[in-house]
């Protein structure tokens, strides 16, 4: 019962805040809405039975990645700028086609799910130790790949960021 009480409000909050991200004018607000959305999703994880994943979601997504976003937004000082065209929420005209397609896609997804009557428990296995064992024993290759991706990401970020901090650098030095 507690789970149901947690799940559906969190889901509704997640959808609303996500919509707010898309339609907000100010990037700072948008980032904050996104953080709220992530909090809501982490509540969903908790309600599905895995406090560990909920914590991971909050710490890494909301805590690390979104803060990175916030830094950049503040660095670019976009919030203080007068509202340019590109910061305006998308108009109806720009929304028609993607809206239609996205709706079709959503209807299809739901139809598929309903038609399939997915069975099985909703209780997540919740043992971080077992999770760790499974990850490092069964999916060690994935761990390595993720590590390499992270390494490449950090190298790329450093390289591009260095060029960004020294504007005199010529483009050909970058590429």
């Amino acid at each position, binding site marked *: 019962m507690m789970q149901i009480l947690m799940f559906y409000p969190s889901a509704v909050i997640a959808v609303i805040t996500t919509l707010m991200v898309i339609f907000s004018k100010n990037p700072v607000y948008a980032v904050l809405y996104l953080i709220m959305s992530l909090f809501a999703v982490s509540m969903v994880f908790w309600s599905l039975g895995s406090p560990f994943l909920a914590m991971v979601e909050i710490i890494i997504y909301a805590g690390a990645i979104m803060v990175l976003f916030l830094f950049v937004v503040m660095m670019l000082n976009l919030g203080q700028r007068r509202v340019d065209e590109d910061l305006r929420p998308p108009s109806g005209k720009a929304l028609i*086609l*993607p809206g239609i*397609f*996205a709706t*079709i*896609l959503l209807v*299809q997804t739901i*139809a*598929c799910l309903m*038609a399939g009557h997915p069975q099985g428990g909703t209780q997540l296995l919740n043992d971080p130790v077992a999770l760790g064992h499974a990850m490092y024993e069964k999916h060690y290759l994935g761990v390595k790949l993720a590590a390499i991706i992270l390494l490449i990401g950090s190298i790329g970020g450093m390289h591009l960021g260095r060029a960004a901090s020294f504007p005199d650098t010529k483009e050909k030095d970058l590429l």
Partner: protein
Amino acid sequence: MFVHNGIPALWVIPALPALGALIIFLFSKAMSPQTAGRIACGAVGLCFGWVAFCSSSLLGLPSADAHNAPYFHQELWTWLSAGIVQSKVAFLFDRVSMVFTIIVSGVGFLIHLYSYAYMDDDEGERRYFGYLNLFVASMLILVTADNAFFMFMGWEGVGACSFFLIGHYYSKSENCAAATKAFLVTRLGDIFLILGLLLCAKLVGVSFLNLSGFESVKEMEVVKGGWGMSGHALLTIAALLLLAGAAGKSAQLPLQTWLPDAMAGPTPVSALIHAATMVTAGVYLIARFHILFVASGTGMTAVAIVGAATAFYAATCACVQTDIKRILAYSTISQIGYMVLGLGVGAFSLGLFHFFTHAFYKACLFLASGTVIHSLHHEQNIYNMGGLKSKLKGTFAAFLLGSAALAGFPGTSGFFSKDAILWSALTTGFGNPVFYGVGLVTAFLTAVYSFRLIFVVFYGAPRKDIHVHHPSPLLVWPLLVLAFFAVTIGVLNLPGFVGFKSLAWEHFFHPIFGEFQAEPKEGWTHAHEAIFALIGAAVALGGILVSYTLFGPNAKMLPEPAGNIGDVENSTPKPYKSALANFLFHGWGMDQLYAAVFVRPVKRLSMINAWVDKVVVDGVYELIGAIVRAFHSLVVSFQNGRVGRYAMVMLFGVVAVTILVMSIIPR
């Protein structure tokens, strides 16, 4: 490598000048013009030496009976093998080839030496010598090839080199026009030639060796008819097509118009290509295919008619020209007409003999006129010359001897060769009195115009004040060598009535032409021949006498010029008062006739064609283009460079694929 089993390597003959051309063209940037000239002269000189060696080897072979002429044959590789077109890169060196290679390399060598001095101050000298060497190589391939298709390669090669060399002074547009005209007119003949060769290949084969294919022609029923025609009719068609090809190359009626204009090239080129060698390729062709022509019968008559008509036509035109080279050009057409007449009446060896003598005296005359032109700073109008006898002594001597040979002065080579042809034209089975009469009138005209040159150019007072600068020795002594041969070479075929070494040339070629060589009919004796020789001599001398009274130093200028004769150019519409003279001056108006009948309608047709092309044909493609552009503008809106649009297209794709998958997979 060069001599195998006593057979000299024949491929070396064309390879030497070809190598010279290759070296000159490859390294022309690095070498001086003089070096190019030396390489060219050296290549042709070596080639002449090798030809002399080959010839002496051939003559050293045990003498043959009537049907088996000795020959060298060398096969290198198969060039073409496609149905009836079977051709090998193979060389045949028999007595006909021998005569032609000696002329091409020997006279060619003298002309190369002459060119070395003549082209000294010309900026295109390297190009000139490259093409000259290439020409000699092509011409040698033409006359040593063992089958007609390989010969055709040389045939086209000489045509191309002729085109390049006529257009040597390409900065003047009329020279380019002359080159193009020569190229197109001879190409017209070549179309007939290749058609004729294909027909020949279909009927009897085109190998020259042992005339293998042609042996069957002797039995007429061997040649199968086809396309609703009998074998004999097809043979006649083939012969006429070959005749048209020969006429194009040898400037015979009705394709003769290119040769007078071809004089736009440097004078040594005129001497080598447009007098001594290339234009006689038609004679070579007919001589090689003589069995075909004899078998056809009608073909022989056509050859004789073309030859006689051309000889007369060109001789009349030569009488009123004012350009020294143009006179010689018409004279060349006329003399080749004699050769063709000789072939047409069955006297094949005499046609070749006239080619042999003509090569010497005409090359001599052309080179002498080149020396005159060179000494007078490129003045070509004979009425601006005069009184050069004392100033250019060596040249005058050569010119006089050459003209005597051309006019048929008794005792010179031209006298013997021409007279033998006239005798055959009267007496053989293919001949008749009309051919003889036309030939005789032409001989008279020849004497008149050749000595008109002598009298106008070398006698009298100078008509125009031009400084005569002294020619270098290299511009004179090749003339004297050629003049010597021009006078003396006639002893190779003294007439039958002489009794000493007479008809040596005809006997030499008897194994080649065999029974196809037409002999005088019954009833014509040596006594008759002597009488007709006397008539010939009298006509020549009479012509010279008439020429002296008409054009001599004391004569009034005939025909009467309409304006200042010294200003006359080749394009002047009415240089003379007399309409007949103007008619002859423009070559019987053949150029204008062709322009009206062929050139202008073709131009109009091509204008219509261009319009159709622009509107209809292009319209179709523009329509296709417009349709494609319409689709393009439909699709291009997806490619506007905005990420959002790409993402949306992707989303559309995802949705579409999902719908597809869901509708296919059964629930």
